[in-house]
């Protein structure tokens, strides 16, 4: 500080000694004496400026550190949007190498997407210059455009690259032939089929009907017309029903109730309810309300155990099991299966629910009547086909929920392959309980009484397990037709969920779809 004219001097100059020598006005005649000194206000203004610059520093810190990652990865980041226009996207191939999504060069010199088949559109989605992205095209956009690899070190080096686009090809576990067959089996009905490799969580089929022509959306020449028409279509083809459609599950939900009963200790596989046969005739009195059910003529007055009750889909048995386990246990077990939160999945999923929640009972049920009805999949219970497929997968996999995944590997421009390994989400229930339910589900397809409902689900020559569901919607409309199951029942490889909107009885409409598709699986992929 020494040696500088201003260094170390007081801020307000009170008339230095040099001043008198130079004949300047002395302190008495100093101009500053006319009012209060400006020194204090100058310090004040200095503080204001410091504060202002401090705020700037904090703001810079906010953008550069706090929200930095979020900002750079925004899908509407204009530099990503602009780069996407020029980027030739990576290919998407099915498990047999069939190219599901490829590229075509437009007359304007910009590439656009083409898709092999309408049946995969609800999964693969579309990438359109005008209408953005959907499905896998959206979920894996960064990798397909090659603007971010998810590997921080490679991304850092990529900043130096004159051409930062390095698209990666995706390989998915889907089988185009099974997907086509699933759509064909659903026919003109609206519905969904989800088939999952029970051991790995790899998704083999994720079909939703009606499908749509994604190529028409991606082609700039037809995109406006195609997208406009699809948005207006009352059948809502743009809704991926398998992952985002919510449906009353009906009896397929009994598998969740069975798991809750076994897990909470409310029942064992041998548990019977003496009041059950009579209640089937008179209705089950719950809090003054009668829960009614049909009676299976061939069970007589026998009180059924878990396996028998599952075979004939006895609502009374499951209502009692639900009441025995309690709403808290039912909601907790369902939660471990994935109900109540978004599923760990590449595509957006709707949240399945056991109840609307907010009720005074444990688990959020309004009362015991709701709980009793929910226990066999009515009341306020809603589930996506994917969620119900995961229930089947978990039972088949001895109680462990595997993370469902579509993409199985990424291949970059240099041919390096990055595999996506299967991973377990959590154990939902113990092996013993899972095996007990598996046995019950096997009887529901293979048993003498079960066959009457679900004969179509049986894969010829393969021991098959499953559960049908007929979800009453109230009113006079046809019920939703459900089936969940897996095969082979003694060493499960593949699990499936089939939903046909207003398709009638589960055993009649959904079960044959599942059986045919699992048979096709063993003919092609499996075995």
């Amino acid at each position: 500080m020494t040696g500088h004219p201003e260094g170390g001097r007081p801020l307000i100059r009170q008339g230095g000694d040099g001043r008198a020598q130079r004949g300047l006005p002395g302190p008495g005649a100093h101009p500053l004496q006319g009012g209060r000194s400006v020194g204090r206000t100058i310090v004040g203004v200095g503080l204001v400026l410091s504060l202002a610059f401090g705020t700037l520093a904090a703001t810079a810190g906010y953008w550069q550190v706090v929200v930095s990652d979020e900002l750079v990865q925004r899908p509407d980041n204009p530099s990503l949007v602009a780069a996407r226009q020029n980027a030739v996207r990576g290919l998407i191939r099915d498990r047999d190498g069939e190219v599901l999504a490829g590229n075509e060069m437009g007359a304007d010199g910009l590439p656009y997407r083409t898709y092999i088949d309408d049946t995969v559109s609800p999964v693969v989605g579309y990438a359109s210059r005008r209408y953005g992205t959907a499905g896998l095209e959206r979920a894996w956009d960064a990798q397909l455009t090659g603007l971010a690899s998810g590997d921080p070190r490679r991304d850092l080096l990529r900043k130096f690259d004159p051409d930062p686009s390095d698209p990666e090809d995706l390989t998915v576990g889907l089988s185009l032939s099974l997907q086509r067959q699933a759509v064909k089996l659903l026919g003109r009905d609206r519905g969904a089929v989800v088939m999952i490799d029970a051991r790995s969580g790899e998704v083999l089929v994720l079909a939703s009907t009606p499908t749509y022509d994604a190529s028409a959306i991606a082609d700039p020449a037809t995109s406006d017309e195609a997208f406009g028409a699809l948005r207006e279509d009352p059948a809502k083809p743009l809704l991926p029903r398998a992952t985002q459609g919510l449906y009353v599950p009906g009896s397929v939900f009994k598998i969740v109730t069975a798991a809750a009963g076994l897990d909470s200790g409310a029942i064992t596989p041998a548990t019977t309810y003496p009041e059950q046969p009579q209640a089937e005739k008179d209705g089950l009195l719950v809090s003054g309300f009668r829960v009614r059910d049909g009676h299976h003529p061939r069970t007589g007055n026998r009180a059924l155990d878990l396996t028998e009750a599952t075979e004939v889909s006895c609502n009374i048995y499951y209502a009692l099991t639900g009441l025995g386990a309690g709403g808290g246990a039912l909601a907790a077990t369902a939660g471990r299966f994935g109900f109540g939160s978004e599923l760990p999945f590449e595509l957006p999923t709707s949240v399945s629910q056991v109840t609307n929640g907010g009720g005074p009972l444990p688990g959020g049920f309004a009362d015991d009547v709701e709980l009793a009805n929910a226990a066999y999949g009515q009341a306020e219970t809603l589930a996506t086909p994917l969620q119900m497929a995961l229930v089947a997968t978990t039972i088949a996999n001895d109680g462990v929920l595997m993370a469902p995944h579509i993409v199985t590997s990424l291949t970059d421009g240099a041919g390096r392959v990055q595999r996506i390994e299967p991973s377990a989400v959590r154990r939902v229930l113990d092996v013993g309980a899972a095996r007990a339910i598996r046995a019950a589900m096997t009887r529901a397809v293979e048993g003498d009484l079960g066959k009457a409902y679900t004969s179509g689900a049986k894969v010829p020559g393969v021991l098959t397990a499953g559960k049908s569901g007929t979800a009453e919607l109230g009113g006079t409309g046809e019920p939703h037709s459900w089936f969940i199951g897996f095969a082979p029942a003694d060493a499960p490889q593949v699990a499936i969920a089939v939903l046909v909107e207003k398709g009638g009885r589960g055993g009649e409409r959904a079960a044959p779809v599942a059986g045919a598709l699992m048979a096709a699986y063993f003919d092609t992929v499996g075995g």
Partner: protein
Amino acid sequence: MSVTPPASPAVTTLGSLIGGIRPRRRGREAVLLVAVGVTLVVGSLSLGSTESWLASRVPGSDVGPEAMLADAVQLAVFLGIFAAIHLAQVITGRRTDQVLLPAVALLGGIGLILMERLPQDLAGSLGGLSRTQLIWWLLAGATLGTLAIVVRSDAWLRRYKYSWAAFGIALLLLTFVLGEEVNGARLSLSVGPFSVQPSELLKVVLVVFLAGYLSEFRPLLAEGAMRLGPLRLPPLPYLVPMIAMWAIALGIVVIQRDLGAALLFFAVFLLLLFIATARWSYVVLGLLLFAAGSMLAYGLFEHVQTRVDIWLDPWSDPLGDGYQVIQALIAFARGGLIGTGLGAGLPTVGGRLPIPAVHTDFPLAALGEELGLIGVLAILGIYLVIVERGLRIAASAADEFRAILAAGLALVVGVQAFIIAAGTLKLIPLTGITLPFISYGGSSLMANAVVVGLLLAISDRGVEPPPPSTPRRLRRLAPSLRSDR
């Protein structure tokens, strides 16, 4: 570092006045300038090496990456400018502030390196972006040095404040009438092949006028005579300047569409008014006027609405109006804490620069990307140093005119830097003004060189003493003031 004090300051003053030259070491300035030089050489080395590495990665290139300076000649010339100013002051024995010059050199050098790094065809008629900027720096440096050394008296500023005001208003009117419209704002005048931005010059004129005006009428302004609710205000005639200033600022918004200049002028005016009078009531009144004016402008003018709407939600139109603002924020975000390194940021999108106005309005975004948060903090810190030095000069000035002048000059730089930095960081709506010493542009560099040159001149203890204070008008008005109460 220690400088031998003069045997007799009076003799030195006299000696320098009659042309006798007595060299004086400026140790602190020398050390700081060397530090700045080293910093800039490292920066240039970083940029040059990155660019060389990038070039080696272009397919078909057979040159390997090597460590090199980006543009050694330009850097040498730039550092030479400041060495020359330093030496000139040493030789002439000037006792001016020794921190301002290095601070300006660092900012200017960072700006020049940024210009070297941007596409050279972005602007500049004299051989590319950075070459043009360097030529402007030669002129600006000459101006700065000349003012610092030659100005030994402030009489020419002090005495003719109304002439300066008239000049300023004439300049403004000229722009209104003859100005060219660029991007919806009427900012520049064409003089031959060059276009001049009068508002840059105007800010200096404004400070000179305000210093003269406020120092003369300070005692009157500081006395509150009128009561308006909780506010004590001076007699109505003395409010006229504030109203006039407000009207001029609003006029600039309306006619010139230059929100940044209007904001700068009004903010500096209010701060100087507070410095001169220490009256909060003025600040409150000024802020009320500002709020009213802002709402008026927002309600009436589309270009103001657009700016505010972009500020509130740039993502409502990410490819249109909000594009540049979003790109700037993303550039900051890409930079992160330590930045990508000079030359490694701003990935061009489809061969297009993501921030078209990066060299004028958004240099901080580019620097934020390449130097990171650390670099941004350093740059903000240097501006604060300039403000602090200016205010220090003001606080130790010999009289009020010089105090307010010095404070005003420092604030013009500080507030301008704040306005554009805050706009770039989405703290306030973006207004298109330059980042002092860093942005590309001759008018801006020249005006800011005048500012620093004057600041240095005022800081010199050897300059001519202010005239004895004889406020004739004060004496005439004071009795009437007393009788008012």
